[in-house]
């Protein structure tokens, strides 16, 4: 027999929900955008050492997009900027 959508399943979600009913929780709103999106900046200067350091780990590796909250575009800019800074010895290639 074919069940239509509106019929509740036997022992299905309806009872399950009732059993585990918790008071609704509200997640605190968090701005998931990265720094550069939030500020509306579409450039990352390669001479801006403090900012670039924040995009790197203690070892001098570039932070992943997830860790840096970067958009694809910002991550590309960050990559380029860090590499230029490394060339000019403003940032290390290999950290201490």
């Amino acid at each position: 027999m074919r069940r239509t959508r509106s019929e509740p399943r036997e022992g299905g979600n309806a009872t399950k929900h009732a059993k585990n009913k918790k008071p609704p929780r509200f997640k605190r709103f968090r701005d998931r955008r990265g720094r550069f999106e939030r500020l509306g900046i579409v450039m990352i200067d390669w001479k801006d050492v403090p900012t670039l350091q924040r995009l790197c780990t203690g070892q001098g590796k570039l932070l992943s997009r997830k860790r840096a909250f970067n958009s694809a575009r910002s991550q590309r800019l960050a990559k380029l900027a860090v590499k230029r800074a490394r060339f000019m010895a403003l940032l290390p290639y290999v950290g201490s």
Partner: protein
Amino acid sequence: MYPYEGMFLLDPVAHAASPETVEKAVQGLLEKHGAKIHRLERWDERKLAYSIKGHKRGVYLLAYFDLPGDKVSPLRQECRITEVILRQLLLRLEEEVPAYLERLAKYYDKIKEDAELRRNDRDRSSRRDREEGDDGGGHSSGDSLDSGDGMDREEDRDR
């Protein structure tokens, strides 16, 4: 003529001996190749992230200029020959120098503003942690990315 940004890493020893000669040498080099210099600024001697040609410290010279396109590689070549220049980076800009400088200034304004905001945030949150006090405090440090420690470290090192 195209707009360029150039950074030159200078030998700190030679620069300390006679700053003007060295800086004039670089400026002369640019002008010799027909560059129209918009701005030339010096960064104070700072520690390098790694040693270059046996030097652990260096003086940076940052220049914004217009240069005929066919003079770029001769300029690079001559920089490599010049002994006081340890390393150089020449970048073609996407826009004219004044426009670029303006954009840079705006960028730094925003970054600075953000840094201040962040600092205030951090002060407030640390105060809250202190008031909560004996809560075990497992979560108090917050996430390391937003703490702005990198900046402080950099400043310390420069001093």
